[in-house]
């Protein structure tokens, strides 16, 4: 009974990512897309929380959005996997529900 949580906001603008991370239940998957991809970067003020989430469960970042914004894949937090839209669809299909942290 796992949930796919999607976050599309920069963690430096809105609390969507922080709120999402504080509501995770076992078996979760988190996908960062649109401006949410900034949450996947190492060395930010929220990175330690994201690292924790990537250790205790699955965290993904949408590669298309990451590349579009000129970000360096070498700076992605360890344990976060890059997926494409097909992977996004697979995640939505395999989880039991999708919660969008708008």
């Amino acid at each position, binding site marked *: *009974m796992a*949930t796919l949580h999607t976050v599309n906001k920069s963690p430096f603008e809105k*609390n*969507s990512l922080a*709120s999402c991370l*504080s*509501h*995770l*239940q076992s078996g979760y998957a988190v996908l960062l897309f649109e401006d949410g991809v900034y949450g996947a970067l190492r060395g930010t003020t929220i990175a330690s929380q994201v690292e924790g989430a990537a250790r205790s469960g699955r965290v993904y970042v949408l590669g298309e959005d990451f590349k579009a914004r000129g970000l360096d894949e070498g700076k992605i937090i360890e344990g976060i996997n890059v997926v494409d839209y097909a992977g996004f669809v697979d995640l939505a299909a395999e989880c039991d*529900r*999708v*919660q*969008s*942290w*708008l």
Partner: protein
Amino acid sequence: MSEIKKFMYVNRKAPYGTVYALESLEVVLIGAAFDQNVSLAFLDDGVFQLLKGQDTKGIGMKNFSPTYSALGDYDVTQIYVERESLEERGLTLDDLLPLKYEDEDDDWAEKDSIRLVNREELAGLMEDQDVMLNF
């Protein structure tokens, strides 16, 4: 459509600054006709939607907060408010509209629709849903 699903409307935004609170409420009212198991969650800035004493005369917008008080008449009676979100904003339950419903299984006794839950409890409730409508 005989299948009954658990629908949760997740409200995380303050009213008036953007349209989401109002248009979420419109879905709730329409959705009430569908005989599904409906609940509303108010967390983060969404708790501001339920504040007492909203007066919109000065901004020329419709005050839609009385509609929350009418939800009980639409059989929308499971309203979860996150305790931590209230506390972070310096609010208590007393600051919120007293939402009530009449329980037909208990001789129409008037009961509170709002259930104060902590973050962990709310996360567990979210995990129990079939459909999440996020606004």
